[in-house]
């Protein structure tokens, strides 16, 4: 074991095309244990596709995905979840006929490999932390969008991931709600879970992440410290639409 030097997650020259459209173009990066990485980029830049490639919902055409130094490129989404990659979906995908609590219970019992004895307490703890405790017994299909987004975060947490992938969970929140969300994500981070967070709400994102990646047309344009990335001319041009 190389110990601290071994990245928890690394992508090596990962590419994916849908027909003639190259949605992920030769992306390589490493995520250190417990690191928080933000991903920004215009709509259609391939951010969610990158998550699908990392979580195993899609197979790359080229390149490899490593978790803890082990090649997981051929593993299914289900196997990668059990190995420690938890994810949320940009468009919430609750188990609509199950209650909020049951949504978490599935995640804990399967992906989290939590026993029947401990699972209820774990799920209730996560619901409390994500502000969903009062909704525990509600059928998830009937929740409003904001609570569904929180459920995405809570369910991903219940799989007890070592890397958690968060896909645009802060959009549409009020100032106060956004503040609570940031506090929750900071707490997850403080517990040692590595985070990759796709987000358009930049002030929320930049208050958590240590590094920022910019995607454009499937290519990794830049990766580095948030303030340096945000200051770069090409980022301002492409992402913020400022003519320089």
């Amino acid at each position, binding site marked *: 074991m190389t110990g601290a030097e071994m990245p928890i997650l690394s992508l090596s020259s990962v590419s994916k095309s849908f027909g003639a459209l190259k949605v992920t173009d030769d992306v390589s990066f490493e995520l250190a244990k417990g690191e928080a990485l933000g991903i920004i980029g215009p709509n259609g830049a391939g951010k969610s596709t990158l998550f699908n490639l990392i979580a195993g919902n899609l197979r790359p055409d080229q390149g490899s995905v490593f978790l803890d130094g082990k090649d997981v490129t051929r593993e299914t989404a289900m196997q990668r979840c059990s190995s420690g990659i938890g994810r949320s979906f940009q468009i919430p995908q*609750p188990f609509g006929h199950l209650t909020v609590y*049951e949504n978490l219970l599935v995640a804990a*019992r399967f992906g*989290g490999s939590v026993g029947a004895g401990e699972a209820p307490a774990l799920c*209730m703890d996560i*619901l409390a932390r994500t502000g969903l405790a009062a909704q525990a017994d509600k059928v998830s299909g009937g929740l409003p969008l904001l609570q569904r987004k929180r459920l995405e975060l809570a*369910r991903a947490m219940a799989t007890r991931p070592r890397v958690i992938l968060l896909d645009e969970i802060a959009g549409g929140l009020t100032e106060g709600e956004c503040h609570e969300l940031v506090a929750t994500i900071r707490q997850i981070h403080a517990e040692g879970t590595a985070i990759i967070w796709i987000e358009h709400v930049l002030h929320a994102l930049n208050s958590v992440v240590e590094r920022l990646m910019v995607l454009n047309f499937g290519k990794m344009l830049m990766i580095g410290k948030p303030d340096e990335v945000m200051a770069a001319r090409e980022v301002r041009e492409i992402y913020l639409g400022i003519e320089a």
Partner: protein
Amino acid sequence: MANSSPSTGRFAQVALGLALVAALAAVPLVAPRAVTQDLFGILTLLVLAMNWNMLAGFAGLVSVGQQAFVGIGAYFMFAAVILWGMDPLVGVLIGGLAAMVFAVPMAFFAFRLHGAYFAIGTWVVADIARLLAGQWKALGGGTGTSLPKGTTKDMFGVQWVKDVLDVSSAAAADAVTYWLALVMAVAMLVASYVFLRSRMGLGLQAIRDNMQAARSVGVDPTRLKAAVFLLTAFGTGLCGALIFIQITRVTPDAAFSVLDWTAFVIFVVVIGGIGTLPGPIVGVIVFYILQRLLADYGTVYLIVLGLIGIAIMLFARRGLWGLFTDRTGIDPFPLRHRPPAAPKS
């Protein structure tokens, strides 16, 4: 509703259930044979319906090929008795196992298909099984065969029942098959409940709601669906074999009848409430009453059944039982996992 303590309510339910089962078990002792035979038909239809409901209502596998398992169960029961000289009740077990074995290659092909294609695929495979059964020369090929005279008289337990109840051998055989059907129905109900409340059952419901999300929280859809497919094939095969002990004659067309062993079963589950545990019970009772009322009207009977099925599908997606629970909130088989400390509202 929640005034009485849940354990008291639970106890009352279990007591009521046991009383009902005891009353049903007493039928052959007090009622004429025709009633026992009628109820045998209802109970076996119920077992088939509960199996199909697990498959379609909970695992999302809408099979139109369950007659394959009824037929294979029946044929292997006949083979066990006629060719291998076994007791018919051992034959029932062999029939169930044979159906489960056949389910392995069937799943291999059918699981590549989804939705409507899966339905048609299972139907095609079932028809192939029917054609193969017609080639089984030792069991009469296309014209089929009958159980040898006296087979059911020598069946396990029949002599004992005959002596104790002081009835004819035929009545004793009816009683034994009837009790077995009752045991199967109760066992199927209890097993379904336990399964759905388990970790596997929770995973199954997650798959039904959202396959992609289920995979992403670590649930393996193929494994769970395959498990349900094999287990329901076993249950359906057992039940098919038992039905044909009572019929005593098997032909490929009767044993692999899509109308008798799948279409009516789907009707029962749909009107009762697909994806609910008590649905098949309600459905089978309604089906039986309709059959009685409309028995003298020939084809009109099937037309009315079809119309009722269509009406329920349009206006009450979760069947009569779904309507009932939605209106009253009563659910004797709660599948919900309640959070440990329910928040006060």
